């Protein structure tokens, strides 16, 4: 039942549209949101693999105590590149990739509001990645993805690596800012007739809030790195304490961006899971309004918690207390989401497709990341845990649990729509179990590594206590995780050629992207149906069924109101 549809499904073919050119120039010059979306997904997944290789090198170095495989210099460069790559070149932009491809389809639009800006946004991202990775030919940055001043000042890191990092922030920042404005305008203006705010798919809600958060947070980091750039090259002293500057200013500006960035990374993941769970539970999402509202509340509170990254800095107790309590508050809407997801499963009929397995793996894993977050929010406890492997474990539970597993769920869920072919479920299951087990073997033990006293960002550690065996376990897990990821890469490459043809709606899903062919034509829809609920495809299937039983004559197409969406 789960994979191949045999019953008649609504299908609308685009007529009188010129067959699209498929040569490489069509990709380089495209402004089509679907092509750009695929380019985003492919490019960012490439960076994911690069970042993963860096992670495995880090784990190799740490697999033994007092290891001399990597020099301290190379080690610092690797974790800086790993963190920067995964955050700025993978998780944030891959969400833009899914958003690009599916937001217009889900809201019944024919493209994004500003197709040329959309292309600009993609090429800025590519430029940022190239500038940053060009630094491997001279000297990559060594200051971590947080690049704290004064360590990032030219006095301590004179090489151009930090500058490459600054330009990466600027370029990917412009990319995200332009893209976010595009998302906002598209979602605000180009929804199908009848799709009020209360009928928007939850993934679109997530991308809307993602865009708003990016618009609010990015100018701050752009300003902060510009000050760093002038400090490094033009004799200013914004972060230089000896000249009246303030190193803590960097930390405040960085985290004022950096914490919303966490939600920028996980909210679209929440959106993907909120789409996948109801489809494979064969049930409406439980508490649509609560999930949409909690997304907005999380985003708002997410702007008020930044200094919980700075509990160990010289700060007054009242500041610590404020940020502890605001961080507590954010657990409430997150708990509401968790409850609604589990309640969506309740009394459903669950089909364990690979997309569903990844979504369930997300629930299982992200909960642990959320709970360890409570430990870190309590500032006296944080004094023991911050800057140790406990934090490394926590942030990977949040980002791999909250974002990466959701991304993989999205890949398995939407691949048929993007390519017209199914991914292999069998290979996908192998990939899922390898990734889930590999992930937990790698990171669960890291909580104990941190509690055992090992700080993060150290290139070597002494063989005391259980540190060596714990680290070895973690390294073994990381390779299992890496193999799991590569199995999906194999699955994708293989299925492009030999995957079963999917048809327009292989999952019997709920949202509008399944209304058109797979892959969709350039103009997406010839006609756009009127939206009557959160689950337009359910309405359409019901209508088709009714027409088939009532009217003996074949129905030419689904009864739709042929209103063109705004902007078409």
């Amino acid at each position, binding site marked *: 039942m789960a994979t191949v549809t045999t019953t008649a499904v609504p299908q609308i073919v685009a007529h009188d549209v010129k067959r699209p050119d498929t040569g490489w120039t069509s990709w380089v010059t495209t402004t089509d949101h679907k092509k750009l979306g695929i380019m985003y997904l492919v490019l960012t997944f490439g960076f994911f693999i690069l970042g993963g290789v860096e992670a495995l090198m880090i784990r190799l170095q740490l697999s033994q105590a007092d290891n001399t495989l990597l020099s301290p210099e190379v080690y610092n460069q690797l974790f800086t590149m790993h963190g920067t790559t995964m955050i700025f070149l993978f998780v944030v932009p891959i969400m833009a990739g899914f958003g690009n491809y599916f937001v217009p389809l889900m809201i019944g639009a024919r493209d994004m509001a500003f197709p040329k800006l959309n292309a600009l946004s993609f090429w800025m991202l590519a430029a940022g990645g190239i500038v940053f990775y060009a630094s491997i030919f001279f000297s990559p940055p*060594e200051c971590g993805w947080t690049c*704290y001043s004064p360590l990032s000042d030219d006095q301590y890191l004179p090489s151009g690596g930090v500058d490459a990092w600054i330009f990466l922030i600027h370029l990917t920042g412009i990319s995200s800012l332009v893209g976010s404005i595009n998302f906002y305008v598209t979602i605000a203006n180009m929804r199908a007739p009848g799709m009020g705010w209360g009928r928007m798919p939850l993934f679109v809600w997530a991308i809307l809030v993602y865009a708003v958060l990016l618009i609010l947070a990015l100018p701050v980091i752009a300003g902060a790195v510009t000050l760093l750039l002038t400090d490094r090259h033009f004799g200013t002293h914004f972060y230089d304490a000896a000249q009246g500057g303030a190193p803590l200013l960097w930390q405040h500006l960085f985290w004022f961006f950096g914490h919303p960035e966490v939600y920028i990374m996980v909210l679209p993941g929440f959106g993907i899971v909120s789409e996948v769970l109801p489809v494979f539970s064969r049930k409406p999402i439980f508490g649509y309004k609560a999930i949409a509202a909690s997304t907005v509340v999380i985003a708002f509170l997410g702007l008020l918690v930044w200094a919980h990254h700075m509990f160990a800095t010289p700060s007054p107790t009242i500041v610590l207390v404020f940020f502890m309590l605001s961080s507590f508050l954010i657990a409430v809407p997150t708990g509401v989401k968790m409850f609604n997801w589990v309640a969506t499963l309740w009394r459903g009929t669950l089909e364990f497709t690979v997309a569903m397995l990844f979504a369930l793996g997300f629930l299982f894993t992200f909960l642990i990341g959320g709970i360890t977050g409570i430990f870190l929010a309590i500032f006296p406890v944080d004094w023991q845990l911050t800057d140790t492997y406990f934090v490394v474990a926590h942030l990977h539970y949040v980002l791999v649990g909250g974002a990466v597993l959701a991304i993989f769920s999205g890949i398995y869920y939407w691949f048929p729509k993007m390519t017209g072919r199914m991914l292999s479920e069998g290979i996908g299951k192998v990939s899922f179990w390898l990734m889930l087990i590999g992930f937990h073997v790698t990171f669960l033990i890291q909580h104990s590594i941190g509690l055992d006293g090992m700080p993060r960002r150290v290139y070597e550690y002494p063989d005391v206590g259980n540190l060596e065996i714990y680290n070895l376990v973690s390294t073994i897990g990381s390779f299992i995780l890496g193999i799991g990821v590569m199995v999906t890469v194999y699955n994708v490459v293989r299925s492009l050629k030999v995957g079963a043809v999917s048809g327009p709606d292989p999952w019997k899903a709920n949202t509008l992207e399944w209304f058109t062919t797979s892959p969709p034509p350039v103009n997406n829809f010839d006609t756009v149906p009127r939206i009557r609920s959160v689950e337009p495809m359910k309405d359409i299937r019901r209508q088709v069924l009714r027409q088939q039983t009532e009217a003996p004559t074949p129905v030419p197409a689904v009864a739709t109101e042929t209103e063109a969406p705004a902007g078409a």
Partner: protein
Amino acid sequence: MNPNPSRRRTLVLALLATAGLTLLFTGTASADLLTPEDGGSPNADKIDSLYKVVLAIATVIFLLVEGGLFWSIYKYRAKKGAVAAQIHGNTRLEIGVTGAAALILVALAVVTFVQLDDIRNPPNSGPDGLELADGVLTASTSKRLPPNGKSLNIEVNGQQYVWRYTYNGDGDGNTLNDPFSYEEMVVPTNTTVTLDIRAQDVAHSWWIPALGGKFDAVPGYTNHTWFKIPKPGVYTGQCAELCGRNHANMTARVRAVTPAEFEQWIADKQAEIAAANKAAQVSRTQIEGDAGTAASSTDQPAEAGATP
């Protein structure tokens, strides 16, 4: 298509994985590796007990939610003839969940505030601790002192890649003559030690796990913490904030000795400094004497150099 066998297999695998993870979870718990280090100082002990309260609450939440999740996965897997209930939500339940989550957090906040004073504020030194003079320290708004105002104050200075400790001197006002040490800090037992934590190049973070949490050393700022060690012993730690290539090698050690031994150690240090000062004085007089006798030969080239 008949997905039932594979579904069952998936389920068995899921349950096995959970069982394995739970075992791992409780296994590390029994080995006391689910808690931070303690036993060196009352603030570290208090943080540890606060952590354990949070851990207990967290474990209950973890089991409840994951239990609900796995129960739903097992109970509601697609079966022949089963039809999914078309439920859209339940406002009362939503409000209930929100309220329950808020209540748990209020409880956590209360527990934290109850423990906070003992973690943040240093106690008086014990009766068998080092005898401290009154008013050794200048008043500071951000700094916390024991109720009687007496503590042994040490300045901790982070520098790439070593810690420097400066002790209060004999009160002659010349901080250059204060006793100091690198990497290993020697302190008396049962004495409240307050630290002024600074950095002179990049940011560092002071951390001896068994003596309490981390406190960042940031250039241009002074951070404060304290500890009070009951028994002689050695406590190790290391810099916890990335400070450059040799960050991993920036270790720190605190050696607690009896007050008598400590006084002896300080006296030795002071004697060393006094001896060095004396030697410097001797060599200064010698140089000045040499300069006096050889005035003509040393002055002339200098004057010649200064002449334009």
